[in-house]
């Protein structure tokens, strides 16, 4: 075995408020974005993955950044940094967007919720590895607004078709929440923020909870017979099947939202009016199509192709690269995502990659690999 089995821990890693619970549950811990987090539990990544698709899993995502951006005109002003329509976002609704660099490259992706109350406030959930940089950018670019980083709160994701039923046994009156909806809730006298969202392609919730109540809440949810813990490895295979971008892999400062297939997250008004970084590049990409596109990829055979593998056209020219690759427990086969020149971004096109110096045929396919099963509401209403 070439892999070192003794993990080298370079700097002191932060622990989440659920650290003791992870260890009690037998988690194999791993360093991730400056935190020590569960990679998987004794059931293993495939079992955790399948359990999430069939029932419900609890993920600790406390490493992600949580902050409230408040002040008059906050929703309108954040539009100077992101391409989503936030000014017209309803109270208690969440939108997915991206913080953009001047050239339209993605600095981070994030969730933005308009909070209820007299004051104008936005709740932001950002990626762990980018959070310091994101918060510095927000403070620098929007100095007239107040940014409060919520360091005293953990974040728990409950994901899967049984998530709503399991959550209902712990918190009341949340089952009718729409997808991308948000509610305040109460647990043992403390305020929770509950968002009907997640990153697995399943129905589910992300629950922001004060640190001291994170473990009791997690234990209450795990007490439900359909809920099991799941780690980062299953979170990654689930989001890959769901065709969702992982920042730092499928999205980064060299990627614009259009080539990443995220045009859906940019509202009509914003496309027409602009007023966000990189508007010229994004307008041109919307009008003429981007030079490259993110696609799904199906490698032939059983061996997974991994991030970084080059993709060649039939004439041998390199026309793309894999940005996420692994094994799909739902489909029992290798799957991948990556960027290819737009002329090759058509389902059914066959490309060639190499694995340990052997050629592997790779078929371009549409995303997601596994259909999303978000909760559209009792009347089947779509996100607003």
């Amino acid at each position, binding site marked *: 075995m070439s892999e070192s089995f003794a993990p080298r821990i370079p700097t002191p890693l932060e622990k989440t408020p659920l650290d003791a619970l992870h260890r009690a549950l037998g988690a194999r811990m791993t360093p991730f974005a400056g935190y020590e987090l569960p990679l998987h539990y004794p059931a293993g990544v495939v079992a955790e993955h399948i359990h999430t698709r069939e029932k419900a899993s609890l993920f600790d995502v406390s490493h992600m950044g949580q902050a409230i951006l408040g002040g008059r005109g906050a929703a309108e002003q954040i539009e100077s940094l992101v391409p989503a329509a936030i000014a017209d976002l309803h109270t208690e609704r969440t939108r997915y967007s991206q913080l953009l660099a001047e050239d339209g490259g993605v600095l981070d992706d994030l969730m933005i919720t308009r909070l209820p109350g007299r004051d104008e406030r936005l709740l932001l959930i950002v990626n762990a590895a980018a959070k310091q940089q994101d918060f510095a950018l927000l403070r620098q670019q929007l100095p007239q607004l107040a940014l409060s980083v919520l360091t005293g709160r953990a974040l728990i994701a409950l994901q899967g078709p049984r998530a709503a039923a399991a959550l209902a046994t712990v918190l009341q009156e949340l089952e009718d929440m729409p997808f991308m909806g948000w509610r305040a809730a109460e647990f043992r006298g403390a305020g929770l923020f509950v968002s009907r969202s997640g990153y697995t392609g399943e129905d589910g919730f992300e629950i922001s909870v004060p640190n001291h109540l994170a473990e009791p809440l997690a234990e209450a949810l795990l007490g439900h017979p359909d809920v099991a813990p799941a780690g980062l490895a299953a979170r990654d295979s689930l989001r890959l099947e769901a065709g969702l971008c992982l920042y730092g892999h499928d999205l980064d400062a060299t990627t614009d939202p259009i080539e990443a297939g995220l045009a859906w997250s940019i509202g009509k008004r914003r496309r027409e009016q602009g007023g966000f970084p990189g508007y010229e590049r994004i307008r041109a990409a919307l009008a003429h199509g981007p030079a490259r596109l993110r696609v799904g990829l199906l490698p032939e055979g059983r061996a*997974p192709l*991994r991030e970084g593998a080059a993709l060649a056209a039939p004439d041998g020219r390199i026309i793309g690269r894999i940005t996420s690759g692994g*094994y799909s427990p739902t489909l029992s086969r290798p799957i991948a995502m990556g960027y290819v020149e737009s002329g090759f971004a058509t389902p059914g096109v066959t490309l060639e990659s190499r694995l*340990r110096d052997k050629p592997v045929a790779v078929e371009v396919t549409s995303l997601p690999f596994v259909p999303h099963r978000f909760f559209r509401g009792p009347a089947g209403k779509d996100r607003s």
Partner: protein
Amino acid sequence: MSGERYTKDHDFLRVEGDIAIVGITDFAQSQLGDIVFVELPAPGKRVAKGEQLATIESVKAASEIYAPISGEVVAINDRLESSPDLVNKEPLGEGWLLTLRVADAAELEELMDEDAYRAFLESEG
């Protein structure tokens, strides 16, 4: 010589005459996690100790297996093609990887026996 031998890379060898059955230890499979693909060499291939011999793909990553001794690949475990998870379930049994014809019996002497391997695991842990 007969009996089981172990390497510091967490491979095991079960030696019968001049044939060694090669696999990975239970510790190794538990560290790799769910195994989804095993790439094995063609029978007849000759390898020197330390040369790349096989690749084990788990859900998350690929891990190379290096030849624990020099020799010639005699047979590979065909069942791993359709059931790579046998390595997780029975690493020392049905989840064996391949057999090698031992080229140099002296190389076996450098490997650990079960007691030594246990002590090695504890010292690493």
